[in-house]
């Protein structure tokens, strides 16, 4: 239930903030902030009470699970579950949520109540996406996070906001539709084969599909996730949306929305269709490597600060695509760290770009220069996160990129060398940020203030996290380990599956795992949920 509460609290907080915003603008900010802090305390409490060293196991293992029937006629459950992977991502969601509320404190003055409603509902949607274990519920939350984001860009964005908002919506909706078709197809194929019509992830996991079915259905999922990620050539929505969105919107887009794409691949595309996913993995890796360099190249060519940072996301998400499909422990753990590190470092760069824009009313880097003298605190933070972005050891992005490249080297040497040249490209654009914005001669007489207390706290928190990721990544690696091992299983078992050609075996395997899990739970005298009881009865 605690998982449902995480989402419900945010939704209620959003409604309250909307109402409060009609009377008092400050109140809606505090409501949003307190709502998120409550959620943050909850998730951290869960994390701390489940110390990281989860035993390596070969079965899906949930720290917390919650199921209740939602639309039983169609086999739709309200099924949430938490494991190491989404624990990390939900924590990131709430953390960046807090950051985006704080960063909007003075930036957003019009319709502040509705603004915070949108922020909280986006976050609720994202949390739901990370926690869902029912495909219908997953798609529901997938939509919940889009619509408020559309408003966020369209109402509070910059000059070209309506165009950007439409572009964002059409890209994600069109690709989301493909995914929904795949979900429905999977639902019916599974229902026809077993007689049980359900959207439950764990049951659908073992659906027996012919090779072509599996491939088509996977494409539906994969395209939705690749658009979200985004992978080249599905990326053109990103620079527009990121640039035009208000700062909070950019932080959430880059830090969180992109991660739902990566998470979707890890949680759905790979486990549901392992053979097809493995079949396309060489191509996916190539597109990942292209994305790394193409994104970096475009970033280097920009003069708009936010647009530059937006393109660096394309580059960094290329690493995620490369690592995900490399399919070994090194690369996948690197992907987990990259999701966090990119969320923090890019989020921070957007915050910096936003606070500069708030002060000097431009994002054009050719008009900046010499800002170090004016805002040394901000410049220092800018330096640190630019360095994170170029992968300096000691900061989170390095751990991620090193692990991903070391992992992909074991799969493809040529591709890794190609991708590693992205390390040089990232140096070019990161140093350009410093050179054009903070160094050099002043182009105008600025009269601006350095970071205030509010911004200091925000930056300080992000610096602590990015350094922690770089120096003690083991905290996160331990938490994610069992989830990563579960995903890895799909890669390692590919050979046996291909050889025997038996899909049923896989199906059986999954069921046995599930039974084992429940048995273990029972032996640990834990209380089974109603849903588990049903499954258990059916299996025995």
């Amino acid at each position, binding site marked *: 239930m605690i998982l449902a509460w995480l989402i419900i609290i945010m939704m209620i907080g959003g409604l309250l903030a909307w109402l409060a915003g009609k009377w008092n603008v400050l109140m809606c900010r505090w409501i949003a902030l307190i709502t998120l802090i409550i959620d943050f305390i909850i998730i951290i409490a869960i994390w701390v009470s489940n110390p990281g060293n989860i035993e390596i196991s070969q079965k899906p293992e949930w720290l917390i699970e919650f199921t209740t029937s939602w639309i039983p006629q169609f086999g739709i459950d309200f099924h949430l579950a938490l494991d190491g992977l989404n624990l990390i991502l939900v924590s990131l969601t709430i953390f960046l949520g807090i950051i985006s509320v704080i960063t909007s404190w003075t930036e957003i003055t019009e319709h502040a109540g509705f603004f915070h409603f949108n922020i909280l509902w986006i976050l609720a949607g994202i949390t739901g996406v990370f926690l869902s274990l029912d495909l219908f519920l997953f798609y529901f939350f997938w939509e919940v996070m889009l619509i408020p984001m559309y408003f966020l860009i369209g109402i509070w964005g910059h000059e070209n906001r309506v165009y950007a908002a439409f572009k964002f919506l059409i890209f994600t909706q069109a690709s989301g539709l493909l995914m929904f078709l795949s979900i429905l197809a999977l639902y019916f194929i599974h229902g026809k084969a077993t007689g049980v019509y359900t959207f439950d992830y764990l049951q659908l996991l073992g659906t027996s599909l012919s090779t072509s079915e599996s491939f088509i259905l996977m494409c539906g999922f994969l395209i939705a996730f690749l658009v979200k990620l985004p992978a080249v050539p599905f990326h053109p929505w990103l620079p527009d949306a990121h640039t035009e969105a208000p700062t909070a919107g950019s932080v959430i887009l880059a830090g969180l929305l992109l991660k739902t794409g990566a998470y979707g691949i890890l949680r759905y595309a790979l486990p549901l269709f392992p053979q097809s996913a493995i079949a396309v993995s060489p191509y996916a890796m190539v597109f990942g490597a292209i994305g790394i360099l193409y994104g970096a190249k475009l970033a280097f060519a920009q003069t708009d600060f936010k647009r530059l940072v937006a393109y660096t996301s394309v580059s960094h998400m290329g690493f995620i695509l490369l690592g995900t499909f490399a399919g070994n422990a*090194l690369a996948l753990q690197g992907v987990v760290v990259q999701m966090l590190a990119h969320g923090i470092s890019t989020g921070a760069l957007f915050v910096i770009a936003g606070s500069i824009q708030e002060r000097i009313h431009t994002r054009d880097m050719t008009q900046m220069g010499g800002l170090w003298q004016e805002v040394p605190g901000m410049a220092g933070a800018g330096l640190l996160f630019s360095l994170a972005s170029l992968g300096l050891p000691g900061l989170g992005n390095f751990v991620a990129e090193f692990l991903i490249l070391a992992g992909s080297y074991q799969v493809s040497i040529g591709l890794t060398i190609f991708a590693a040249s992205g390390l040089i490209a990232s140096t070019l654009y990161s140093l350009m940020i410093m050179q054009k914005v903070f160094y050099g001669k002043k182009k105008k007489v600025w009269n601006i203030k350095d970071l205030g207390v509010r911004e200091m706290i925000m930056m300080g928190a992000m610096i602590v996290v990015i350094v922690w990721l770089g120096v003690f990544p083991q905290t996160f690696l331990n938490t994610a380990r069992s989830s990563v091992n579960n995903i890895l299983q799909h890669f390692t078992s590919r050979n046996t599956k291909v050889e025997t050609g038996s899909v049923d075996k896989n199906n059986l395997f999954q069921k046995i795992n599930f039974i084992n899990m429940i048995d273990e739970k029972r032996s640990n005298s834990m209380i089974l949920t109603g849903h588990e009881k049903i499954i258990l009865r059916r299996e025995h």
Partner: protein
Amino acid sequence: MLNLLWLIPALPFLGFLLLAVFGGRMNKTGVAFLGVGSVGISALLTILIGIDFISSPPDGYSFNQTLWVWMNIAGFKPGIAFHLDSLSLIFTFAISFVGFLIHIYSAEFMIDDEGYSRFFAYMNLFVALMITLVLADNFLLLYLGWEGVGLCSYLLIGFWYKEPANVYAANKAFIVTRIGDTSMAIGLFLLVLHFNTLDIQNILQSVSTQWVRGSSLAVLTAFLLLGGALGKSAQLPLQTWLPDAMAGPSPVSALIHAATMVTAGVYLIARTHTLFDFAPIAQNAVATIGALTLLIAGFSALTQTDIKKVLAYSTISQIGYMFLALGVGAWALGIFHFMIHAFFKALLFLAAGAVINALHHEHNMFKMGGLRKELPVVYWTFLIASASLAAFPLITAGFYSKDEIIWYSWASNIGSPWLWLISLIGAFITSVYTFRMVFAIFFGEQKTPVSQKPGKRIKITLIVLAALSVLGGFVELPETMGGFAPFTHFLHHTLPAVALRSEESGIELLFQIITAVLTLAGIYLAYQFYFKNVKFTERFKQTGLSKFLFSGCGFDWLYDRAFMYPAIFFARINRNDFIDNIYTFITWLSTALNGMLIKTQTGRIRWYATVITMGAVITLTIVLVS
């Protein structure tokens, strides 16, 4: 005592953190106290730990200390862990001790700068990371230090960031070294693939037991690591960033771009000597690159007019000697030259800084002159360091370190007459350009008035380093002079001794005399051409050859055309991402189709009737025909 090892890098790092957070609010005395003090304690600790290490050596002549496991994935388990042996001890000593002296100097040198605390923060961070680099027990931590010192170099070259040229130089340094670093990173991926570890000692062990000597795998790995070393140590073809790096303050040039960071490549090759031993082609490449670099950079130094640029090219050239030593298997001598070079080159930069400050930021040596009387301490210390750089026979430390390298480039079993000849020419050029500098700055008539004389802290630093530039040589005497060599004996616990070609051992003295005579001849030549007979050199300055050498042999020109312009061109084209046009086209197409369909809705009955009839006719025709 050894358990305090971690404090050596940790203290300067703490200094950095405090300065970074509170530096803005501290007064200059406090900043200097913190900045200098942290490195000072670190240097003291190094000496104490060194004494402890030498007096009661631990098992296996090395000491390991693990602070925590950095990451642990499927058996791949690099730690934040240190490895102290004779090699890393010598480097740590040189870094912390020379670093400490330079910090003392900087406390006075930078006193009028508005970025005083920022300067010491960066310098402390540099010392911490450089020590981490040499103490690292695995390649990943080494890489952290490696990139970290590159960062500090970038920050300190661009320290006076208001001048765009400085920022440009800083970017250049970072990007060029990063190219080498990427090659090294790929080397690390290769090592992870083959050994699933990055522990240096383990890897060297495995290389010597599992790999075949001369196998392409060993050669490839060695070359990938060498790429990193070339970038960091400014060797051909990645040397172009170092002369520009002189945009930073003089203490930075002394510490980072002369004494320590640029020798990281030397450390890396010495540290992985087993690997290079297993890859003879790579080791030959080290020797050849070193020889070529020392020659080219030496010639370039000959034509420079900016005092710091002369020293920069000289540094490239001297590191070339270290590479040559490593390349012919004289590992310990490469390290010896590193240490002596750290003393005298740091001194040269610091003295040059004092001169530049005294003359109102004048960098051109031919506008100096006659400073012998005005700045006696600077003059004498600069002279001693110059003598050491030129390898003045018998009394200077540089003689003992360089002379041996020249000898072994012939006598080593993988040496050759060519390498010997090049290193000999290099030695001759070195003494010419060094004393050209001395004559131009301190002799002749005074051209610029002295505005500011160095104070106590600068003078003390110069004198201590001058003493080391002389006395440092006596810990390593050649065979012909008694062979008292505690330095190499100490290092041989880590590095193998050089293997000689058997028949050559008798003629060492002859070789030494040739070298000594050439050095003295070089000094005389400098005296003739740059002091007595300046007209000839004036004419030489106008020649194309001189201009070619002045530009660093055209490497910048070439790289601009081969890489930079294409990169900028490539960045400019497709700035707006052509892929976007594909989607714009889809949008356009939909709108266009929509427009066409709208046009059919005219609202006229006659039009609708015509279309219906035509449609019926066409449909019927199709049905009938098929």
